[in-house]
């Protein structure tokens, strides 16, 4: 269907330029990651490039950190990973549950409400995170509440809302209102029509939103830096104290494994929710 966008045969300078720029973009996106991945398999003690020999030694060393009761296990790492996962799961759940009905309203009613709300929900993207972090901290401390893990969930939800909403609105825009009306005329309640007809059609947008929510929450550093406590700390905070104090191939191995965890989670979301309408 979309073959026409880039001509398959001929196309000359146009096709060449498109592919050249696309490759350049891909290179810029992935080069540092490729380098880091290569170096994490280095057999050497230090990070010289390219590695003279390759080995799995840093990965073996790193897996010892994750073993529950091993000699080299690091309880703080395990707790931080668990907290990060919990926070990300809550953030994804909350953000999608609130954005789906909002997207529905905005697209169906349109006009000024849509513009205003979209602007409002873009704000978290515009605010410099450093100052937002300190504001959240000052507010949390003045409230005198035992927030626990919600210290992080609440600001993270705000950060991901722009992404989740945009994706949901995007998906909602392409849903024909007649489908819904048809369901209602056949006797379904408006709520049933929404849940049974609209939500499944919005799926690709919801999944895209969830993927962004996951990535942003799981890797958020700046606000978390102000909000974490010694009891509620996340993987990026753990990584930060580690990378500032030393940089060796084992640090690179850990960061590469974190990337793999991210990817596994993204693919899991995709698999669980998408079925055939796979986004990725």
């Amino acid at each position, binding site marked *: 269907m979309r073959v026409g966008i880039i001509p398959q045969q001929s196309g000359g300078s146009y096709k060449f330029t498109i592919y050249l720029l696309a490759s350049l973009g891909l290179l810029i996106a992935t080069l540092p990651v490729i380098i880091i991945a290569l170096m994490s398999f280095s057999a050497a003690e*230090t*990070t*010289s490039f390219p590695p003279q020999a390759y080995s799995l030694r840093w990965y073996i060393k790193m897996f010892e950190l994750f073993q529950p009761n091993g000699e080299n296990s690091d309880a703080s790492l395990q707790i931080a990973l668990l907290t990060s996962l919990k926070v990300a799961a809550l953030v994804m759940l909350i953000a999608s549950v609130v954005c789906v009905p909002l997207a529905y309203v905005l697209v169906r009613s349109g006009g000024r409400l849509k513009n205003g709300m979209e602007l409002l929900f873009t704000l978290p993207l515009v605010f410099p995170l450093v100052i937002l972090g*300190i504001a959240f*901290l*000052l507010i949390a*401390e003045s409230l*005198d509440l035992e927030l626990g893990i919600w210290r992080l969930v609440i600001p993270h939800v705000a950060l991901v809302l722009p992404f989740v909403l945009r994706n949901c609105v995007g998906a909602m825009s392409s849903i024909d209102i007649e489908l819904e009306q048809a369901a209602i005329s056949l006797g379904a309640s408006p709520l049933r029509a929404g849940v049974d007809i609209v939500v499944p059609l919005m799926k690709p947008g919801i999944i895209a939103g969830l993927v962004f929510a996951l990535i942003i929450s799981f890797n958020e550093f700046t606000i978390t*830096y*102000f909000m974490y*406590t*010694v009891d509620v*700390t996340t993987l990026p*905070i753990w990584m*930060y*104290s580690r*990378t*500032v*104090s*030393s*940089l060796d191939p084992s640090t690179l191995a850990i960061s590469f494994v974190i990337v793999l965890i991210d990817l596994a989670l993204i693919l899991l979301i995709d698999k669980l929710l998408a079925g055939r309408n796979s986004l990725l």
Partner: protein
Amino acid sequence: MSNKFTRRHIIKSGTALAAAMAMPSLVFASQDKKFHGKTIRLLTWSDNTGKAIVDHIAKPFEELTGAKVIVDRTGSTSEMVAKLRAVGDKAQYDIITLAGVGAVELAKDGVLAKPDLNKLPNLEQVDPRFRTGADGHGIGYLLWTGGLIYNTKTFAEPPRSYGQLWEKQHDGRLFLPPSTWTDALDTIVATDKLLGGNGAAVNVDQAFSKLAELQSRILTFGENPTQIAELFRADALDIGGVYAPAFYAKELADPNSNMGATYDLDEGFFADLMYTIMPKSKPGEDDVVHAFMNFTLDAKVQGIMAEAVLNGPINQQAKMSDAAKASPFIVKPEQLGSTAIVHDKNYIADVREDWIKRYTQTLS
């Protein structure tokens, strides 16, 4: 490795040492596991000096007393101060280690408690100049010392003056401390001294116009010590400062790192007393917190820390290995003669904001 060596060395040492150790070890013998089940929370630096505190202070303290030490290693001194200010009187930490200026700032805010000096018997052994500070709110910890870091491939002989930062051949292979660090203020004072100042009343305009010459020659600011170490390893840097060798205990012992450091400079080197402090509203128990503060001053602990992070010990009887004693990178209290520059903290507090802004404007 070096740590094991130090411990064995101490155990093997002769009777003189044993006598010197008798007092603190008696104190500790009576404390065996007496804090079992108690917890304290420590906030410290994210860099390797914080890591060393975990390994060489927190862990031995846990083994000795049975207390649990939860360590939070995040940030630089000014970031710690910002976070502690934001939470005001609801601190989640019992003890914080930080640079002198941070302790002064927080003491001014009125969020710090004055430790009970009677509960810190190890203070007896500490050089009287370095026992307390920040109006009695800070207990001396270790000395932060700064000089020049240089590339051993480029320099056959260690540099002798800060003036060598201005040598043409280091264009593009030069680093300075970031404006946010106290070391940047040191750099301004060093420039002033280079121009003939006395290090006390700084001729700021003159110093900044000299520093401005470096603006286009700097490769980077040393915001991230590991990044600087990598650039040295890759032979991309020649010289930088004022910067602390403390970050590079491992690199300075490794010839492949290309890294050397020196305090032996015509204009002198910089020394700043770091403190341990405790917030008024600390969650932990007073006795455990004091015991921990006392433990940081223990002769053995001070010796091990000095060797691990190249900070200057303030305990006059600090137990150091022969290698550490001979190390040119560890400044001992008695060496703080005429060449050490110790800032007047009140003067620095007055000019700080202006200098930080001008440093940023001049150099970035």
